[in-house]
């Protein structure tokens, strides 16, 4: 067995331990080296992965761990995401959180978990990786300083997360009990052998797996935890929750449904269609009523999950491309939006939508970046959101879900309304206090990078689309 193929995971684990270890010896005023070390480590693993793994199609441990372009693409995506989250955490952690060593260390463990999720070719490996991700996130969510809201967020997230894990595990045991295997390719073969109609016991297992994963990505009706957790968690963690954990779960969902449960397509498609319709509608309608910017972004990300789920429901190579592209585009956009919230919160300690009044005067750059993020989330041209939504919606329509695409477009219009309300606050409403916003050069740089990313994906998605097509080919030839 070629253990070199495992090098990115080993190295990343070493980086996480290095961050935890170095933290012990650093004096308090030198803790700034920790994020630098994390970023260097993440970029190193990124280069290593791309150099060694591109184009390989093999597996380790008898199919437990898959090395293909799909897992490599998500590895690279998660590493870049990790770098951005670390960068956006720097100022926030310095100002609002104690114990940075454990913060960055656990953050890197969670990135490792996401990489494992995208690469696992077997249900138990996927489950334990998901659990590593969940545990890391439980800790990160509870990181906030004292107060009712952080504690509520932490406790709620841990309890509901454990409940979701139990559902998922029950589903896995049901599938294993009926089909006698947990490997994706063998499940595929066993389902083909059984033929239609699907054994109800397997179907129950499948439904439980969908429910368990649905909890993790906040699909309506399993979304109740999301707004409270998003509001109470430290904002960089909220951004990470909204982008990272969702991307990882969708990577797993894409692989699971295409490589394992594809023969039962007719049985699960209808479930996903209903969930998608519910999710996008409820998410966007409730978002309109929110006063807190983090809650609003939480509901809007629930809406985005609805679109992604629609793509999975129309599963085909085209739809898979659309889902992955939207994950990347929406991820970058959401990070940009949350970065603006972080910058604003660092300067003012406020996060209500009403507080954004007059931001255009107080800091034109942040207001512009926030507007770009909101317009991209709504799906307007020149921004990432338009391109990715266009791909995703076309693919879903191509898969025969025309009415659902209609609903998705209606929802996008609804979302435009509440995004516009935030922009109205920033540009039309005068501020109570007109002091310029104190934004560090470093934060401006991070904002600029994210903004550039969102615009580049919007106007020149070609190379990204090529990479995504290569990734999809690995799971849906």
């Amino acid at each position, binding site marked *: 067995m070629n253990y070199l193929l495992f090098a990115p995971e080993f190295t990343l684990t070493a980086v996480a331990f290095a961050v935890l270890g170095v933290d012990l010896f650093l004096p308090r005023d030198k803790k700034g080296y920790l994020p630098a070390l994390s970023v260097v480590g993440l970029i190193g693993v990124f280069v290593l992965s791309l150099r060694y793994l591109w184009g390989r199609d093999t597996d380790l441990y008898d199919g*437990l761990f898959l090395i293909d372009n799909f897992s490599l693409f998500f590895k690279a995506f998660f590493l870049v995401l990790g770098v951005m989250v670390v960068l956006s955490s720097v100022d926030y952690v310095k100002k609002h959180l104690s114990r940075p060593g454990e913060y960055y260390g656990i953050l890197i463990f969670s990135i490792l978990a996401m990489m494992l999720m995208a690469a696992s070719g077997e249900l138990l490996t996927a489950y334990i990786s998901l659990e590593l991700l969940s545990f890391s996130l439980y*800790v990160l969510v509870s990181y906030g300083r004292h107060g009712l809201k952080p504690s509520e967020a932490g406790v709620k997230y841990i309890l509901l997360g454990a409940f979701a894990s139990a559902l998922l595990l029950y589903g896995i045991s049901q599938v294993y009990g009926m089909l006698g295997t947990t490997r994706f390719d063998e499940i595929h073969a066993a389902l083909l052998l059984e033929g239609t109609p699907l054994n109800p016991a397997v179907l129950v297992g499948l439904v439980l797996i969908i429910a368990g994963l649905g909890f993790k990505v906040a699909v309506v009706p399993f979304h109740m935890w999301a707004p409270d957790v998003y509001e109470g968690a430290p904002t960089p963690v909220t951004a990470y929750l909204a982008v990272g954990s969702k991307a990882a779960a969708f990577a797993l969902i894409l692989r699971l449904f295409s490589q394992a449960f594809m023969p039962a397509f007719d049985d699960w498609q209808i479930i996903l269609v209903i969930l998608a319709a519910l999710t996008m509608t409820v998410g966007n309608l409730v978002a309109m009523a929110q006063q807190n910017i983090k809650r609003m972004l939480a509901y809007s990300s629930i809406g985005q999950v609805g679109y992604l789920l629609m793509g999975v429901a129309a599963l085909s190579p085209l739809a898979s491309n659309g889902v992955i592209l939207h994950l990347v585009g929406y991820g970058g956009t959401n990070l940009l939006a949350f970065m603006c919230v972080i910058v604003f919160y660092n300067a003012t300690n406020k996060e209500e939508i009403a507080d954004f009044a007059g931001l255009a005067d107080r800091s034109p750059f942040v207001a512009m970046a926030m507007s770009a993020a909101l317009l991209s989330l709504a799906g307007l041209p020149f921004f990432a959101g338009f391109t990715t939504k266009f791909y995703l919606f076309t693919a879903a329509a191509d898969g025969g879900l025309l009415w659902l695409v209609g609903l998705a477009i209606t929802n996008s219009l609804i979302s435009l309304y509440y995004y516009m309300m935030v922009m109205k606050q920033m540009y039309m409403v005068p501020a109570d206090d007109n002091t310029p916003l104190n934004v560090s050069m470093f934060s401006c740089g991070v904002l600029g990078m994210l903004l550039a990313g969102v615009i580049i994906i919007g106007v020149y998605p070609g190379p990204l689309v090529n990479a995504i097509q290569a990734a999809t080919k690995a799971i849906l030839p």
Partner: protein
Amino acid sequence: MSLSLVVFYLLGAVCLGGAVGVVVSRNVVHSALLLLVSLMGVAGLYLLLLAEFLALVQVLIYGGAITIIVLFVIMLTRVQEFRAMKDNPQWPLAVVAALAMFVLLAAAMIKGAPSETTRQSVSFEELGSSLFTQWAVPFEVASLVLLVALIGAIVIAREGGEE
């Protein structure tokens, strides 16, 4: 009815009875002890399925370690505050949901009953070698999960104290 089926129903009753007791009991200490009963029932089920290693681990870890820790936690926190545990007003809903889930699962299992197979015991050596070769990834990841949980517990618990 074969003997193993009788034993199965007995053990099932022990598990279920213990679990119901955990939820219904008003005294936290009683709940913790009833949890032990339920977990021992599960260990018995493992034995019935010829999974000796699992049964052993279940007794050692759940029966020994976990229950003891729960009891310690109860003793070290102020029990007076927990004595009069109130029911969540949503409990009837929870009962309905649990029953509906049970009916659904039972119906699915009866309709799609798996074919009968004879179960063979897996030797300790076999289990150990497959755990460290083919299943090495999940096994190692589990150790990372424990590590993160450990660090996380310290971070969260120390949040209140001084730096």
